[in-house]
């Protein structure tokens, strides 16, 4: 072998053949390409435009409205707000679930001036930690909200931290045509409800469609039974960790539920609510306890065939006037860049104009402001609004009325365990109570 004449040749000799894959030129080209990419990447990626803005003409809004319809509503509302006030809304949309799971980080980091959130315990939780701004003076300018809504917007310290925008009720849904065909009547007591269920079974229907694959739909059933058996105040205290889960009151809820389980669609843990709703839509099930969004699973020409009733009375001293109707709305960050604009925006959102936009754009929810023009409502929406309007108390749904960690890590598995094996209620409740103690004291 001859002596190498250049450094490159010398080095090349030292390299085992398996290693000598690339030649020098291609490496240089690669390096140049890579550095070009690096350069453009850094320039384009990191010098992004200033969208937040600290000036007087913008307000930023963190939104969980990632579904097309709510997104559209928000876009229209902010466009209308710009026309009326001249302030531009910079909307930061994060998908609904991520937003929800990240809320703690989000609020402790650098939140947008105004952000979407839920009424009830979830709002009070962050208000009590000083992570939300007081909007009591905005409430002074708002009108058209019932006391129940104001109560749901008020923090533990008696100040308002929340502006409601929309809501939807939970009720028992059914198809009018199916009920007419069999001549069913709306039940008003638990006995009638049971009789109706037994009749449906004889008629070859699944009485109550049911699904709990995602964990949260069964919370609706627990909530309504608890509200009917023990009343609203007990529900609130139980959710706040003040009442014991091992008490006879809670036990009675599960006993009643266990009695109703044979009427429910079996194997519910492997079914999503969409599939359960489709069994109602396909006239295989008689009724379904769910939120108003169940209508999403029905075709346009079937919408008029959907009807509902509120869950029947169980205890006549408690009545059947309370229900779950989760309220969605907006809150203000603790230190917004422009408090004046943020409050202006909240006032606009709580006003009649924004409500009218929602009525026109979103048939899936109801508008919180009673002053809004609801002539555009469908028959279903009108009836739902009446139902909620006549309610004495409005609960927010289990996972919104309690600590998020308690709802997701304790209640979801516990309810699924109960559905799987409804016999050992005592053991289940003891386990919930023990976990509750450790979570609520942390």
């Amino acid at each position: 072998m001859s002596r190498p004449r250049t450094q490159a040749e010398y080095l090349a000799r030292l390299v085992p053949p398996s290693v000598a894959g690339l030649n020098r030129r291609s490496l240089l080209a690669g390096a140049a390409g890579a550095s070009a990419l690096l350069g453009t990447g850094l320039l384009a990626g990191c010098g992004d435009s200033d969208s937040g803005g600290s000036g007087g003409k913008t307000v930023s809004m963190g939104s969980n409205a990632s579904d097309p319809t709510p997104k559209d509503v928000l876009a229209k509302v902010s466009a209308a707000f710009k026309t009326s006030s001249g302030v531009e809304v910079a909307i930061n949309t994060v998908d609904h679930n991520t937003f929800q799971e990240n809320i703690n980080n989000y609020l402790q980091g650098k939140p947008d001036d105004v952000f979407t959130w839920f009424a009830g315990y979830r709002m009070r939780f962050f208000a009590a930690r000083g992570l939300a701004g007081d909007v009591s003076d905005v409430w002074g300018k708002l009108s058209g909200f019932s006391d129940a809504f104001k109560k749901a917007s008020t923090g533990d310290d008696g100040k308002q931290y929340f502006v409601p925008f929309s809501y939807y009720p939970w009720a028992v849904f059914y198809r009018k045509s199916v009920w007419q065909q069999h001549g069913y009547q709306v039940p008003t007591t638990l006995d009638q409800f049971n009789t109706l269920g037994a009749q449906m079974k004889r008629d070859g229907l699944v009485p109550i469609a049911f699904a709990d694959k995602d964990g949260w739909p069964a919370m609706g059933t627990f909530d309504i039974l608890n509200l009917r058996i023990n009343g609203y105040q007990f529900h609130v205290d139980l959710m706040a960790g003040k009442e014991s889960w091992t008490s006879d009151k809670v036990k009675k809820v599960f006993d009643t539920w266990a009695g109703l389980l044979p009427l429910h669609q079996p194997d519910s843990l492997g079914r999503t609510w969409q599939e359960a709703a489709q069994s109602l839509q396909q006239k295989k099930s008689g009724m379904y306890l769910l939120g108003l969004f169940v209508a999403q699973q029905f075709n346009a020409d079937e919408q008029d065939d959907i009807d509902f009733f509120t869950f029947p009375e169980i205890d006549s001293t408690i009545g059947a006037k309370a229900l779950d109707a989760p309220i969605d709305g907006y809150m203000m960050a603790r230190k917004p860049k422009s408090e004046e604009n943020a409050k202006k925006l909240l006032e606009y959102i709580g006003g009649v104009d924004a409500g009218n936009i929602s009525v026109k754009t979103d048939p899936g929810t109801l508008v919180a402001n009673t002053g809004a023009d609801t002539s555009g409502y469908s028959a279903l929406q009108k009836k739902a609004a009446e139902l909620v309007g006549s309610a004495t108390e409005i609960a927010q749904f289990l996972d919104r009325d309690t600590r998020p960690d308690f709802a997701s890590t304790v209640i979801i598995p516990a309810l699924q365990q109960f559905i799987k094996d409804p016999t050992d209620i005592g053991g289940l409740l003891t386990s919930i109570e023990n976990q509750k103690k450790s979570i609520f004291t942390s």
Partner: protein
Amino acid sequence: MTTSTLTRPPVTDDAPQQPRRRLTPQRVVLHVFLVAVAVGWLFPILWAVLTSLRSYEYTASHGYVSFGGWTIDNYVTAWRSAEFGKHFLNSVYITVPAVLLTLFLASCVAFVIARFSWKLNVVLLGLFTAANLLPQQALLIPLFRLFTEVPLPAFMSDSELLYDSYWGLILVNVAFQCGFCVFVLSNYMKALPRDLYEAAMVDGASVWRQYWQVTMPLCRPALAALATLEVTWIYNEFFWATVLMRTGDKFPVTSSLNNLRGEFFTDNNLVSAGSVLVAIPTLVIFFLLQRHFVRGLTLGASKG
């Protein structure tokens, strides 16, 4: 390229091949096992591809174990509604600088560990390797707090903080990936002949020159293998991008996949289409650079 083909021993030099290997029970078992494993790995991917090509209405009424309802609408909808174009670009902004920076920094450390003997060599290598074992989640809260306290000038990020900026994500990825790269590169560099450096020193090459012009060109295969692995890992990274970002528009593509989930309703067929789209870049990189990929996994195997 020519040298490698010339010096590679010809195939016929192998042990004389029998026309057909005998079918022993071991071979049958081996092949059954291999087929089972291959199916096990491919099934989820093929299932996702299959699901993504069917309409939700059809699978909702006929179930997933059925045949029909073919459509490519899911891909169109997924691309449009999750705004993948924008988010793919975000992923590039994070991945490319992070990979280059990781390789550069890791090779510097590896060079020092491999080439200079001083007391803390082993400790340093141990430190970098041990960092690999740290669960990233355990560092979430301290890092989050830290990032919300570190200011950045407005021209670098509109959040004016390390939090919610690409810089922050690049930094996190570089920090977490350096350990592995140092480990691999230092092992590789230790295997390079020492005479080379003695010759370089005799010729008067500075340390920098020994690193940049002697070591780095020889490390090309290792660097290529690592680059392939790192691009895949950092691109797939989801956790930090979700917690250390606040602005939906700045999410990389992995986090933006969540945009396809609805509040109450998730169209699994649509999500499958989105997942397939997101997985394509890693698949492309893998198939293009498969050779480096496999070599990367065995780099340390035959060398000290």
